């Protein structure tokens, strides 16, 4: 399932300044029972977003109309815990195309890249500036430029570059995925399999 191309994203952002947000919070296990990739956005942050009786929790940021946008800004160590790709699907399905954090858990980061959500890792200082800018003005725009590998707080011009390997960058820019790549080298893989130590 290749995804939409990602080049430059200019958007307001939703702040979630909590550390160690694990994938059980992003999508609780009881919502992993589907056999198709559909509707996971409805249950994004389910137990932080809704009370037990399904009424919205007014103090949670996704229920606050002040904040919106295609960028989610999370605290340090975002996406830890379970490898469930459903967490990345939920983020995407809700409408986010980019997550900014000062540190990502490994598997979550890989899952995002595989489905077309761009994880942008910035310094703790820059992350603090982004949170402060959104707090000062919820309409502040953040610009994520993949070709240049930069993230900018548009209003102040403060900018930082981010890392992504060249291969993944090309994939994101073109909407290709690893599955396309691997399917194209199947015969090479079959040859390799014959040479394994066991």
């Amino acid at each position, binding site marked *: 399932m290749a995804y939409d191309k990602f080049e430059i994203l200019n958007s307001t952002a939703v702040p979630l300044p909590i550390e160690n947000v694990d994938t*059980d919070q992003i999508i609780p296990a009881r919502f992993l029972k589907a056999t198709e990739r559909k509707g996971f956005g409805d249950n994004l942050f389910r137990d932080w977003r809704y009370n037990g009786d399904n009424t919205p929790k007014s103090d949670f940021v996704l229920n606050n109309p002040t904040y919106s946008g295609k960028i989610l800004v999370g605290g340090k160590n975002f996406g830890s815990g379970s490898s469930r790709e459903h967490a990345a699907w939920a983020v995407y399905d809700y409408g986010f195309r980019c997550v900014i954090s000062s540190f990502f858990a490994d598997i979550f980061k890989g899952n995002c890249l595989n489905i077309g959500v761009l994880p942008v890792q910035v310094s703790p200082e820059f992350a603090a500036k982004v949170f402060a800018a959104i707090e000062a003005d919820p309409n502040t725009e953040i610009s994520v430029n993949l070709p240049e590998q930069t993230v900018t707080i548009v209003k102040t011009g403060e900018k930082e570059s981010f890392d992504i390997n060249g291969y993944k960058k090309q994939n994101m820019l073109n909407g290709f995925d690893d599955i396309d790549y691997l399917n194209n080298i199947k015969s090479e893989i079959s040859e390799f399999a014959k040479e394994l130590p066991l």
Partner: protein
Amino acid sequence: MSTKKTLFDKVWDSHVVKHVEDGPDVLFIDRHLVHEVTSPVAFLGIKNRKSGVLFPNKTFATADHNTPTINQHLPVADPLSANQLKALEENAKEHGISHWGLGHEKNGIVHVVGPEYGITQPGATIVCGDSHTSTHGAFGAIAFGIGTSEVEMVLSTQCIMQPKPKKMRINVEGELNFGVTPKDVALYIISQLTTSGATGYFVEYAGDVFENMTMEGRMTVCNLSIEMGARGGMIAPDEKTFEYVKGREFTPTGAAWDKAMAYWKTLKTDEGAEFDKELTFSASDIEPMITYGTNPGMGMGISKSIPNAEDLEGGVATYKKSLGYMAFNEGEDMIGKPIDFVFIGSCTNGRIEDFRAFTSIVKGRKKADNVTAWLVPGSHKVESAIKEEGLLDILTEAGFELREPGCSACLAMNDDKVPAGKLAVSTSNRNFEGRQGPGSRTLLASPLVAAAAAVTGKVTDPRELMKELA
């Protein structure tokens, strides 16, 4: 560049099909384990791309996450769970993949049955759409969890694309104290590194403590590698490993065994090989552990009190939110806190040695009246051993019941949910908010700590109940 290699290098490098310029390695996967939750969308993917399964005999499917742990002979009541189980069965059948579904005599938690039947072998690359795949590293395999897109990659090409992680060695030297189990060793290391301290690394565990540990203990330790952020953890195979693997259903025999052994014996870190990071801990510093917060890094010796926010690194607000969820206060003792539930099971501590440990404390005592206890074996094989060894008689006498195998209350996808506000001592792997059911509160601990809580109805130092065994 040094030609000296770590154990991890040896296994990883021998599986690299090719390196992508300015990108990841294409890594060949020897064993692919599949369960019902993270696979259906991957099977849908290969259907849509018409790519098929390249090596169906390298993939093994079992149902575990969603399965009920009582009345498994009856139809699954939850229609969504039933649908997912049916999808796995049909997908496996369509593609010629072996499937140990609900009711199958070999059914159990994917990371318990893999080793039990010899699917797990030294030097192999093993993946599964489940972060606790790191369990299999106990055999000197490279084993780690993957996302569903990668499950599709493995089905259709037997490969994934990943950059080679950095390498960390964690040594624990000396002898463990009385009452300290492999679970405590792991929770101790995680508490020292925090939940993100090993992110970006693949860990090798070395030193006296791991050398002296049983294979099941090693599985518990490697299982929890992901809880400090590591992609996986592994231990060099030794005679104990070979002895464990020998004679199991999928283990090579005859000439193939000799060839395998010759290779497996080379699987150790060369003297002088370099790690990006190396840490050494002393076994004597470790006591029975318990967690007090909402991630596995928030653990401490059971006799200690909950740390003050200002004594910790990291965000005070997040720490206070965590304690607020748990309804605990800074400076409080854990000992003596009344508990409501005890769960023994999961891919972390659902093996026979865990049930033996649990039973050793329960023997001659009674389950506390205020405690609901869920005893869930990791597989039918574990379940049979519990019965054959006479443990079930002791447990029954003490007022406990044994359930049927599955992941159960570890992630509460089935009906085994701890109710909101209730406090559970669990031998599983995660104490995240709501992990064991919406609003549930979890204390992670060893089977000994769980048993002590089960018979006293409160958090209790198991050493107090083990004195006669000392």
